[in-house]
């Protein structure tokens, strides 16, 4: 009897897998889960480190970037209002950050895959925080004080377009 039940459930699960692997379509559910901080309503609740991380990931471009990526990066960075002398060092720092972030991501996922449910992300999450802080320090050293102030002001402003998890 147990075998029949197992078989039925296995068939059900295969159907479930098949259905859920379809391309997504617009969904009829609430817009966001309730446990997300909505930066458009409470930007002060969005931590600086999270805001910086999201901004840096979004405006940095991968090594195999397309022309669209590069033009979009210029457009996004133009909103910061950096002087020409500050722009190139910022792009260079962003490229280095992206490369380090991608490497960190690979390490995280290799460990999570190998350890399964026993995986403890604490150490990796601290490394992620360190990476963002290191990028901020690099920027401070690479661009003018005025440029850094503008960069920071811009990231603070962008919090209103972020939705972040309550950690």
């Amino acid at each position: 009897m147990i075998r029949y039940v197992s078989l039925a459930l296995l068939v059900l699960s295969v159907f479930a897998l098949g259905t859920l692997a379809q391309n997504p379509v617009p969904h009829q559910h609430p817009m966001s889960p309730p446990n997300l901080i909505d930066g458009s309503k409470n930007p002060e609740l969005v931590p600086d480190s999270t805001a910086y991380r999201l901004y840096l990931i979004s405006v940095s471009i991968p090594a195999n970037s397309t022309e669209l990526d590069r033009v979009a990066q210029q457009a996004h960075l133009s909103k910061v209002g950096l002087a020409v002398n500050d722009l190139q060092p910022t792009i260079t720092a962003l490229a280095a950050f992206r490369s380090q972030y991608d490497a960190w991501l690979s390490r995280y996922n290799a460990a999570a895959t190998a350890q399964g449910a026993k995986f403890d992300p604490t150490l990796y999450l601290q490394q992620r925080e360190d990476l963002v802080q290191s990028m901020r320090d690099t920027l401070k050293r690479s661009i003018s004080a005025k440029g850094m102030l503008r960069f920071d002001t811009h990231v603070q402003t962008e919090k209103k377009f972020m939705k972040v998890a309550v950690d």
Partner: protein
Amino acid sequence: MKRIFSTIVFTLVCSLFLPSKCSAQFFQNHFNIYRTDSVTSDGTVNGTTVFQTVTIDGYTQVSTMPPIVFHTPHIRNQIGSSGGWYTGSSVCPGCYISYSNTQGAQPGNLLEDDNAGAEVVCSLAGIFFYSFEFLQLEVAYTRSLNTGVLRGTAKCPNGQDTCNIWFIVSYCTPPTSPPDWNPSSYGIQNTYPATSVWYIDGITACVRIKGTGQAGWVCLPSGASLSWPQSLNLSPANCTHTP
């Protein structure tokens, strides 16, 4: 084997009868979403391109999952008739997801419906995280008037010249006031006296969450502009005003 079996059974029963509780039971989500818009323009609507990047970054903690299960991020990044759904790489349930998508579009209309957000789908339990916004995007035109009051000076964007930053006010017809985009200052090389840059016609891109009315417009701080001398005696213009 028993563990995998019981996980599958529990997940299926849970998904079928208590989907919201099921998500809360299995997934401790730590996902963050960010949408950012920018614009490049040569000063005309046809020469304006809007870029929108949507990013999802984070992870979920799951108590137990069979090894055959994977999680896949999907991003919705639509500007008017451009863009759509984009799918990132499938990863293990405890893996970290960091996925961005950028779209560039030349707005076909001055007002476009826009839809942005992301979701993560579990191959066994379905969608367990989502966050979407229904937006409207427009290319906004505003005529401004130079007050002749200097706000200050700053290095021009070319890094060499010095620019005067003038206080400006909108100069629109009564039915189109206040404009959706209301810039407060205008920077130009200090070789130009205020009277030679008295009227400023500017365009930029603005976004709002659908249903928030005129007060909901958030505009990019700087756009493309043309300026005209005071001697032209221009009239207030029909600025972009979308309630």
